[in-house]
């Protein structure tokens, strides 16, 4: 349900998505799935997601979400998407109820319907006790649950999740994963960005790996592993994104830890 064609974002020396024919996420409309979107830090995952959620303009190329062009019809796109940002920005001076009601109102859900929806979503995460607590008082995991609830608020056609399981407890993570499967089964499209490869491998029906703005692999976890001659997705990812020998890196770090602490004596006590 989302499609990116040669989309790019110029940010000086920062590597963005480079021009490509039919690039990452390019697929015919109508199929629904959970697409895992992987890449090392700085590969361009968040930039791609920001382009698809109409937060930044592509400087080249085009992208369509739910059948609408992100540049031509951003409001139509925004009405149809839910987004959990990696940064997790919230208005922390609001309570969870106030924040979610605001999101509901912005999406045209008002009055008792908004109230019911807010309560239902937070109940899903066992957060009814924290409904009227300021978000600044919430733990990282609780904030993440509020962000996920906010993303689900408008019953979106497409969900963009950037590290959605960050900080949330194992039980809530199970709920989220099951929820995503159910949503996909009901016809929603989900783009799932994460560094936790096990989770991606387990819940995503298809995976795209990007590096330095380019798609370097696409397929199921087994297909990608087979194509790279690796035993697991983790090893395939390491090969594709050019990581240094992990044993060598570890030895280097341990050596740095064991180095004499020069100047430790006159450091703050």
């Amino acid at each position, binding site marked *: 349900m989302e499609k990116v064609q040669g989309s790019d974002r110029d940010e*000086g*020396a920062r590597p963005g998505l480079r021009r490509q024919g039919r690039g990452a996420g390019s697929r015919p409309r109508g199929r629904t799935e959970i697409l895992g979107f992987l890449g090392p830090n700085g590969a361009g995952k968040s930039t791609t997601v920001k382009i698809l*959620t*109409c*937060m*930044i*303009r592509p400087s080249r190329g085009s992208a369509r979400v739910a059948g609408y062009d992100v540049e031509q019809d951003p*409001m139509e796109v*925004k*009405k149809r*998407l839910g*987004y959990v*940002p990696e*940064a997790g*920005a*919230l*208005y*922390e*001076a*609001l*309570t969870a109820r*106030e924040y979610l009601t*605001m*999101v509901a*109102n*912005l*999406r*045209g859900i*008002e009055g008792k319907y908004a109230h019911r929806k807010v309560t239902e979503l937070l109940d899903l995460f066992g957060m009814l006790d924290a409904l*009227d*607590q*300021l978000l*600044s*008082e919430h733990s990282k995991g609780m904030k993440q649950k509020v962000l996920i609830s906010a993303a689900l608020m408008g019953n979106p056609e497409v969900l963009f999740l950037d590290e959605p399981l960050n900080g949330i407890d194992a039980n809530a993570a199970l709920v989220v994963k099951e929820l995503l499967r159910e949503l996909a089964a009901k016809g929603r499209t989900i783009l799932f960005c994460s560094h936790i490869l096990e989770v991606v491998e387990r819940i995503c029906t298809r995976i795209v790996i990007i590096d330095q703005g380019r798609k370097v692999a696409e397929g199921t976890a087994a297909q990608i592993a087979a194509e790279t001659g690796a035993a697991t997705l983790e090893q395939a990812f390491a090969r594709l994104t050019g990581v240094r020998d992990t044993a060598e890196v570890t030895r280097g770090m341990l050596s740095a830890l064991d180095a004499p602490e020069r100047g430790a004596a*006159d*450091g*703050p*006590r």
Partner: protein
Amino acid sequence: MILRRAVQALGADYSQWRVLTGVMLKCDLRSSNVLQMGSPQKKGGVKLPWATLVMYAFFGIMIALTVAAVIEAMGNGSPSLPSVPAVHFSGSVALFLISALVGMIILVDFNSVVVSPDDYQVLAHQPVSSRTYFLVKVTNVLLYTGLMGALMGAPAAILFLFWAGPLLTAAWVLAVAGAVVWTSLTMVCVYAVLVHLIRPQRLRRVLSYVQLLMSFAVFGPMLLMQTSDWMPSVETGPPAALMFLPPTWFASLLPLAAGEGSVTTVLAVVAAFGTIGVLVRYAGGRLSLSYAERLGAIASASETRRLPGRAGGVPMRWLSAEQRVIATLVRGQFRHDMNFRMAVLSLLPITVIYVLMGMGDGGLGDPFVELGFAADGLRLIHFAVLGMPLVLMENLFRSESFRASWIFFASPVDRAKLIGSTGTCVTILFLVPYLSAVAGMFVWSFGNLWHGVGHALVLGLLAHLIVQLRLLVTPRLPFSQRLRKGSRVGSMMGLMLLAMLAIGLLPLLLWVAYARTELTIATIVLLAGAGALMPRLVTLRIRPRVERHEFSG
């Protein structure tokens, strides 16, 4: 219903506008106590910043007194029935002061209302149109500035009601509203233009310098008000030159309401409200969510220029470990925290203007020659120099990156010593360079090297003591408190009033200290000794408190 139609006529979504305006207001009013454990706002609710409101009401009384003084000075002789030119001129002066203060409020306290990257992160992916966002931001700014404007204009309105009748009072209220809206929109437009024109990588730095220039623009014309050449006679209104200033345009409503309008006053009123229309149109095109996108880019963009690997300027090896920690933090914040940088840099125009005012007010007399109260021209400079530490300390505690102060609580560090070191670092990093410049000016002005350096040294030692006393009263770690919108100008002015009281007593000290060379040396030794002891005293006083809070934060 009318409001709904008005909002819809402006092309915004009424429901979204209502929701977002309420949310922004709630966030602002709560932000002062958001992080206090067990605060009454924990479950929502809002708290008005009463101290700030009282402070602006106090400014309003001062402005009303200025109006009365101007009318009196214009030679009417009968304040029970002021002439229309006197009302026009006094109204212009009062509106100028209100506009300057509104400008300063936005500059110091509410720039985050205009320049807020948070909105982008939270709202950019929501179906909110640029028009709606623009209207929310403008409503947000106008709510604050309107409230401040009302508090500052109300006492003068009461004065006009008794002196000049209800029609003129109504005109005054309209003039205040117009001037406040004009100033707010102008500030919004300046920010919007800058954000539009400058690359995100450089924007943060450029904004701080532009804010510095803008503070000159806000304070600068106050200097003009000091000279009596501007005071017109009773027959005429404001001087022709003042007719170029927007506050005078709005004040032209007063003669119109009194039935004594001229072509000039009609044109001025047309210009006043016409420019508001132009500003609305211009800002409407600029202050959109794509504007917020640029602000978001400021938050994520980093300047590519190379920073020195180690702190230059101050020889760090002479500092203790705690002082080095604080010095590194303060220098880093000064480089990258726009609010802190602006707060520090805004002290420069104030000092320059006070120096110029002091020079215009009978020259800068050598306090070693003109003992005690005789050296009147120095009063404002004393005010700037001794008020500076208070303003600095007020800004040193607060930062948008206050959450990063967890590191002090999770490190094996003596926090009492850290707090004690803060004062020393402020003295070394800011007071010493600042007072060196002031000393140079004293030497040039007094024509005597020792007198200039000696006086700057005494002021510097006093300023250092003020810094330490501030820490003793409210010991806090630097940059560990959340920024409170709307409170900085108020608290700054409150501190300045306290400083004014203290500075009133300064000539007595100088009278004794500068009477003989031995007394001067003794005063310097005494102040230096007290200054050296104070950090230890601060550390001793706060250690039990810090230890008590070791596990409770």
